């Protein structure tokens, strides 16, 4: 078995569309798990923010989906997939301030148009696959550096 194939799935849960009441629970669970694994606080914060933005995006923008997190010796991968509608204009979606969020989401304080930018900022690698009418899968990879990665 290759070393980089040793991976452990530590989170795998469904995220319901429009469910703001439990929104963030998956991210919170992941954060606690990472803390138990002894991952440095700075790294946990990056992962937590990226995961929370991914989770909230599923709730705000999609018909529902799932959130999965995998740990390997060198990185954490967070994968958000959904059943649709897919992102029509990917370039615009990554523009700071651009948002297609509903009025309801905006009233709750979402829709700043920073979600995908934040995910990109806090990930070391970001892969997005999307098809209008089918759905989207976003994979955020955060590397686990050797000790001394903290940089305030």
């Amino acid at each position, binding site marked *: 078995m290759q070393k980089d194939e040793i991976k452990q799935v530590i989170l795998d849960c469904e995220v319901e569309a429009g469910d*703001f*009441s439990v*929104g*963030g629970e998956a*991210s*919170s669970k992941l*954060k606690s798990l990472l803390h138990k694994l002894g991952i440095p*606080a*700075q790294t946990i*914060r*990056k992962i*937590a*923010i990226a*995961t*929370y*933005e991914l989770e*909230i995006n599923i709730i705000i923008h999609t018909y529902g989906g799932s959130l999965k997190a995998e740990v390997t010796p060198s990185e954490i991968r967070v994968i958000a997939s959904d059943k649709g509608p897919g992102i029509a204009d990917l370039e615009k979606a990554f523009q700071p301030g651009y948002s297609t969020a509903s009025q309801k989401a905006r009233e*709750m*304080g*979402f*829709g*700043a*148009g*920073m*979600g995908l*930018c*934040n995910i990109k*900022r*806090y990930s070391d690698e970001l892969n997005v696959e999307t098809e209008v009418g089918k759905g989207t899968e976003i994979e955020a990879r955060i590397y686990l550096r050797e000790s001394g*990665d903290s*940089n*305030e």
Partner: protein
Amino acid sequence: MKLKEVKEILSAQVIVEGSEELELLSGCGADLMSDVLAFSKENTVLLTGLTNPQVIRTAEMTDLSLIIFVRGKQPPVETIELAKDRGIPLMSTDKPLYQACGLLYSAGLRAEKLAKLE
């Protein structure tokens, strides 16, 4: 700046208790969740008018130390319960956001730096 000083400067009412000696290093005033998530540093106090429970999730993700609701806003019970569960102190002040931020800033509480987490 300690939590008790913040409380005094803003004449704030405590909703969920926190340690009076809690040291705060910077402040952030925002009414949009993702704007808060874009700026994040430990030991920060968030001043906001957003009272729904997602503001507690946001605080949890970014390790915010204290949330103060401005303009006299009172959060719903779901927000209070989640804050208690997550151990995040909450306060409320009658002052509007601009004034509350200004008072803390003038008293020496630094602004949130838009620092990239490396």
